[in-house]
């Protein structure tokens, strides 16, 4: 019996040591995984109204070179209470984070969001240009 116990303990210790030596994946200040991806762009963008329904009249025009997003919203959209929704390339994140309703009513000073790549080395600032259906 003693011999069996010794074997079991040895196996457990080996497993523990193996798990303990495993290399940890790096994470950023938000606890998100930092990867090797350097891609940095917005793939889709939408705006939701207070009723959580889209207010865009058609697909937005996203210029990944000029870093602009042109989006047209329905006539009668309440621009002060909109929920922006970004789709980003894999592993990228957004700065500032979207915390909820956002005011897009100041059309002369469009809102800007920075996309940060998966490796956290590339940052691109996109400007959201909202126009109302006329």
């Amino acid at each position, binding site marked *: 019996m003693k011999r069996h116990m010794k074997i079991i303990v040895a196996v457990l210790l080996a497993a523990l040591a193996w798990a303990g030596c495993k290399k940890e994946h790096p994470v950023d200040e938000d606890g998100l995984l930092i990867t090797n991806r350097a891609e940095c762009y917005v793939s889709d963008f939408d705006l939701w109204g207070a*009723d*959580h*329904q889209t207010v865009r009249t058609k697909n937005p025009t996203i210029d990944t070179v000029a870093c602009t997003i042109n989006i047209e919203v*329905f006539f009668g959209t*309440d621009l*002060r209470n909109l929920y922006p929704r970004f789709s980003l390339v894999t592993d990228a994140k957004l700065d500032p984070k979207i915390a909820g309703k956002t005011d897009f009513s100041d059309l002369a000073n469009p809102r800007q969001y920075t996309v940060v790549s998966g490796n956290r080395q590339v940052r691109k600032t996109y400007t959201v240009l909202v126009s109302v*259906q006329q």
Partner: protein
Amino acid sequence: MSFRSFLYISFCLPLLLAAGCKDDDYALPTPQSGLQNDAIKRTLGPNVIGLNIEFAYAMAILPDQGKLVSAQAEASIAGATGTYLEHRSFFTDPNGGIDTGVPVAEPSTTNGTTTSVTFNKDTSAATLRYFYRIPEEARGKTVNFTFSAKSSNGEAVSLSMGPYTISKMDMKLDMAATDAAACYISIEDMAVYTAAEATANPEKIDLVYLYRTPAGLTFNHALVAPAADPQYLPGVTLPAGVDRNTKIIKTWALRDRHLARLEFGIYIDDPDFEQKSFTDAPNFAVNLKKEAGAWVETADGKYRAYIFVNNVNNGSKTATISMKRYTMQ
């Protein structure tokens, strides 16, 4: 412990556990002696003035011990007209699954807070529905109920239910709004007025209903405050004095069960009105569809309401709306 013992236990323990999990054979429960009773509340959601609170009150006694003589329900606040205790016991008809009532007592009589029935059939067990029509006097208060039954052997049982809080809000269903006709909505009166009626009470008009299909724009059915930007009131000439600036928050998929009468188990209650934030709310809501809704706060902050769009008709430029309204001050 030897290794052999260890193996023996390892083999026996799962067997013991498997035996322990075996289901017991079903046995008919032994009925309790004496008169028994029980009740459940059948209605869900907030208790709104004018609606019913429905209970199912069950009572039974073993046939060799006696029969049911009477049953009664007593409310702490007398119910409004329409309060009654069912005098029929229901069963589900196997042909079609319809609830079918079998009269077992005289129709109920209500005397003040007490509603009672006297059994006129030899009945040992019955489940009677009790419908309490919520009276105006109960607004914002709590109501308790005491159900009781008597049997022919002299036994009596009773059961207390509650307290149940009665909502402060009001409700109005299926108001017809018509573009350029009955299109002026008053939250205070929970009514839709024509231009002539709005002219008589301009201070009560909070919203204008309109339907437009301008070329190239999505407008459709809309609820707009009289004080809104004129671009949201195209072709509307407001009656003199109609100028309130109402806050409106457009909503979707909030199909209150009372207002919509659809299958969705969502209820708007007093706290929803109290906690709703109208900060930065606009004064217009365009492109409203069937089953959309709008939270509304009157310009003076006295009332908050939720307006549900039951139906729209593009051809006749009409909408059927229902409203729950809460007085804030």
